[in-house]
């Protein structure tokens, strides 16, 4: 402790008058904070504020507080910057972190306001009228050919390869390896119950989950972990992961500690080795290469839809246009607040652009080229609530992806220590004694509850807007206003400022 000059971030206090010495805290803490020597002791320096001990202490004897230790104020050298330097001076290396960007960047969603009806058009009551959220993801033709007259109309155009979702919400890609099998199980069960899809992330799909194939998007990332013909067939679509919002431009980082036997066989890599997927796909050095992989995957799957996931970077609109023209059916935009199991903090916190802006410019670009029908857009990376979802849809998303929100539903406290494999909540760990804590059915129920709650809220928003189908909100920026954004950003978002 003294050697690395770091002071504890949190202080753990055990009230010994309340403590019954049941040792639940010792069992529950994944980070080894607690010990027992005639009484319960806590090593505060190991605490990550995941609250597992606090929640499970039957006597409410444990409190976790921020260490009030005073640092001399300095507006340039905030404490976290000083700590980062101490860490790197102690041992060379990148500072690793988990979950999404935690710096206080402008959150555009918090500067967008939604409209509602008053007098000139009636709002619609979702308790009394149908309110439709059904969404189809995939390529649509520009028009339909219909022949015949007087009620006997026949459709001549087949609309193939669309994924039907009962809600415009999907679970974002989180790999088996970064999260536990029980987390994957909970997501798959919930996706099936909700009529939506989960996404495998880049770690393959455990064979046990193949029966959920109608509710799974399988991912093919640069490491090709767990990619084989049967896997590619085990979903409704294949996603080529080019980039991730939390770490644009770099590959995956799964530390060897999390490669247990099951992860090893699912990923098809040796047990205990670090799974570092390459930064680029080594068969995609340009857009024409992407086209080849898209069509290779289509050939391999009998022409299932192919999604391409990219991080939102500066030139995202042109990139998305290229992806659409390369033959993708879905573009998955992952904003710079998107989560991760492990990323260098420098990249997570400073690379990429906000989802809201990327989404707006991609949707506008595809429209200006007249190719918006060719692809669906999933917006993810920073969707925290149904309000964010509604705003993303109004900006142009067909559906939104939720990753971090799903994990929070399962108990995640955003301690940002996923990469250690010590997750006390059994979510981002492969240690059987930890991952066994997450009951997949219990987890699925919580995920279903969350998505159903957001769906209710979305319906309420639609009703207030006076529309009864989500497609009337989709891309309908006329119903958004900006507040407190600079003029340039408002113009880029193509929304009007409040008051106009």
């Amino acid at each position: 402790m003294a050697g690395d000059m770091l002071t504890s971030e949190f202080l753990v206090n055990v009230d010994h008058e309340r403590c019954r010495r049941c040792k639940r805290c010792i069992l529950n803490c994944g980070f080894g904070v607690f010990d027992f020597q005639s009484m319960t002791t806590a090593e505060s320096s190991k605490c990550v504020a995941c609250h597992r001990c606090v929640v499970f202490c039957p006597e409410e004897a444990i409190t976790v507080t921020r260490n009030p230790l005073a640092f001399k104020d300095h507006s340039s050298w905030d404490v976290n910057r000083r700590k980062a330097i101490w860490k790197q001076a102690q041992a060379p290396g990148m500072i690793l972190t988990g979950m999404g960007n935690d710096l206080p960047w402008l959150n555009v969603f918090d500067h967008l306001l939604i409209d509602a009806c008053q007098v000139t058009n009636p709002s619609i009551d979702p308790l009394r009228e149908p309110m439709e959220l059904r969404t189809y993801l995939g390529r649509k033709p520009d028009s339909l050919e219909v022949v015949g007259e007087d009620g006997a109309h026949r459709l001549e155009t087949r609309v193939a390869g669309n994924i039907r979702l009962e809600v415009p919400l999907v679970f974002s890609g989180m790999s088996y390896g970064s999260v536990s099998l029980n987390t994957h199980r909970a997501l798959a069960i919930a996706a099936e119950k909700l009529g939506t899809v989960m996404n495998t992330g880049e770690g393959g799909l455990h064979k046990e989950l193949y029966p959920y194939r109608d509710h799974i998007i399988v991912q093919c990332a640069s490491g090709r972990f767990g990619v084989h013909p049967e896997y590619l067939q085990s979903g409704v679509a294949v996603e080529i992961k080019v980039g991730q919002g939390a770490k644009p431009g770099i590959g995956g980082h799964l530390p060897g500690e999390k490669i247990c036997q099951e992860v090893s066989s699912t990923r098809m890599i040796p047990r205990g080795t670090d799974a570092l997927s390459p930064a680029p796909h080594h068969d995609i050095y340009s857009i024409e290469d992407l086209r080849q992989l898209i069509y290779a995957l289509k050939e391999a799957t009998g022409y299932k839809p192919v999604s391409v996931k990219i991080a939102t970077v500066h030139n995202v609109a042109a990139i998305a246009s290229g992806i659409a023209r390369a033959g993708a059916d879905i573009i998955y935009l992952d904003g710079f607040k998107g989560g991760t199991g492990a990323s260098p903090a420098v990249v997570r916190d400073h690379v990429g652009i906000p989802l809201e802006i990327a989404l707006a410019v991609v949707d506008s670009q595809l429209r200006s080229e007249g190719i918006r029908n060719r692809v669906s857009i999933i917006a993810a990376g920073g969707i925290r609530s149904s309000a964010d979802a509604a705003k993303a849809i109004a900006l142009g998303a067909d559906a939104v992806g939720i990753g971090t929100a799903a994990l929070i539903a399962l108990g995640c406290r955003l301690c940002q220590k996923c990469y250690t494999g010590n997750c006390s909540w059994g979510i981002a760990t492969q240690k059987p004694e930890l991952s066994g804590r997450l009951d997949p059915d219990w987890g699925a129920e919580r995920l279903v509850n969350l998505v159903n709650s957001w769906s209710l809220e979305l319906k309420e928003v639609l009703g207030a807007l006076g529309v009864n189908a989500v497609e009337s909100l989709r891309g309908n920026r006329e119903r958004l206003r900006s507040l407190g954004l600079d003029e340039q950003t408002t113009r880029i978002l193509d929304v009007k400022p409040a008051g106009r």
Partner: protein
Amino acid sequence: MTVAFGDQYSRWRVDREKVPAACGLTGFICEDGERVPGDAVIESMRVMHDRGNGLGGGFAGYGIYPEHADLYAVHIMFEGKEGKAACEDTLEESLEIAAGEEIPTAGGTPIADPPLLWRYFALPRKEKLSESGLDEQDFMVRLVMDINIRVPGAFVFSCGKNMGVFKAVGFAEDVGEFFRLPEYLGHTWIGHARFPTNTPGWWGGAHPFSILDWAVVHNGEISSYGINKRYLEMFGYECTLLTDTEVVAYLFDLLVRKHRLPLEVACKVLAAPFWKDIDAVGDPGEKELLESLRIVYGSALMNGPFAVIVGYSRGMMGLNDRIKLRPLVAARKDEVLYVSSEESAIRQICPRPDRVWAPNAGQPVIGRLRGDA
């Protein structure tokens, strides 16, 4: 400065703001092709005086220009002589003009401060048409949008064949008298009284809205306007009039003329059936059709309260939104189909219809000229 082209108009041109409005509407078609004078549609509108507030009224008549039936009848309002001169240069460049004249109007009505109102009977110049690579109708659409967006002080409000739109700031019945509609004979007439909620009226903002031979009168507010407009822009339509009614006319033009969807099918796009009803359809072909329409044309769904009457060269249609949030009544007497906001407006001109009914939500009422008419 005139009422027609005041500050409001200039601001609209720059900002492209949308203006909500509510209204009363009426229409009828003589399916046997009999042409009747414009008195009836004026009388029908007069009953619904209170559905307007004097800030906009208008009419469309079909079959009214038999002597120029094969030419586009281009109705234009000009902001003074300069607007007219600038616009006529553009017109001459693109069109072979067979005749041009001031639209006849009557004095002694309450209609005040009219702009210059002219009409031209014309066809695209052959060399311009082939240069453009467009078909004749697309050429006209492009020309009209060009003038309305880029020629200051000129606004084309009607450009169909053998039909015409007449509209102004005022109560509908006064607008009808002002334009001397009783002197025209038409087989189909539609009328509109406007109740704009937040603006002094602008002549161009009155209904009907028209493109080619489509003319739309509309009561309601299309809550999905924002996406309908952006969807239309992908197909080259520029919404210049800043009212949601305009998108109705363009959506019909896109779906029926360009995508060649049968009119009833287009109505399933604009007032789409609910998924619960589509899921319950037994016939797999019908189900796939309805499902595909929603998948492909979701952005064309007109959501929110509306009743519209749409006129076109050989027919007229009334349609309500998918949950019927605005009134629409239909009636039939012999060869004539009537559609209106109010039954009283129908009975005013047809006291004893054979049948009167309230069309269901999303179910179009369509009248068509008979094949020989």
